[in-house]
């Protein structure tokens, strides 16, 4: 059971066209739990809840198999740049 990291990545890649994408299998390999960091222009002008909804929708099919999806970052490309800058300098 579960889905592979590749499947999750492919779904997010095709549906949200991210400028940054990191998918981490946090289930220890069984594909039931993932941690996602994503930057996409699709998030522009959207609240956090709506951004998460976009991610959930992009993974609607996969979610049937995924037990836990943690979206730790859902940023616009610009926000991504900014936080990358701050984390570098701090």
């Amino acid at each position, binding site marked *: 059971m579960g889905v592979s990291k590749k499947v999750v990545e492919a779904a997010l890649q095709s549906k949200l066209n991210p400028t940054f994408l990191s998918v981490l299998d946090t289930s220890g390999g069984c594909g039931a739990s993932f941690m996602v960091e994503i930057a996409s222009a699709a998030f522009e002008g959207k609240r956090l809840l709506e951004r*998460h909804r976009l991610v959930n929708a992009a993974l609607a099919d996969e*979610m049937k198999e995924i037990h*836990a999806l*943690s*979206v730790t970052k859902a940023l616009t490309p610009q926000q991504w740049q900014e936080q990358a800058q701050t984390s570098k300098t701090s």
Partner: protein
Amino acid sequence: MQSASRTLTALFRGSTRHNSGARASLQQFYSRNFSTSGEEFDSHSDFKPVHKPDQDVLSVKEQIDADIKANPVMLYMKGVPGAPQCGFSAMATQILQIHGVPFAARNILEDQELRQAMKTYSNWPTFPQLYINGEFIGGCDILKKLHESGELKEMLKSVPRN
């Protein structure tokens, strides 16, 4: 219908738990479950959602409507606040406790009908699910972000404290 089936599950569980004297325990359960209204014996009374007696006949959707209306902070979670059965639900509970707001919780693991209904109702695939003042806020990740940014504190200002 809804609450009848819920009580029925409780009855089943009760009767398997007390194998000896099944009839006596059945009677016990009858008196325990039908004398009080809308009581769910699995949740801690501190966190029990506010009930009006006549809500027993409500559909699942009406029940959710009523819950999020009656409870300014309403959490749908796996397990109960005193014993969460999932790390994400545990974190949500902890964050709310940090803010010291009273909140009600429903254990979706105890109610498959509610569990499925919540996914549709909130258009959200996972648990926990948090409602503040009747508005869907999100899951654990969002709650954590709102907590860190200080937005949660603002949102909870309107909630009356005990």
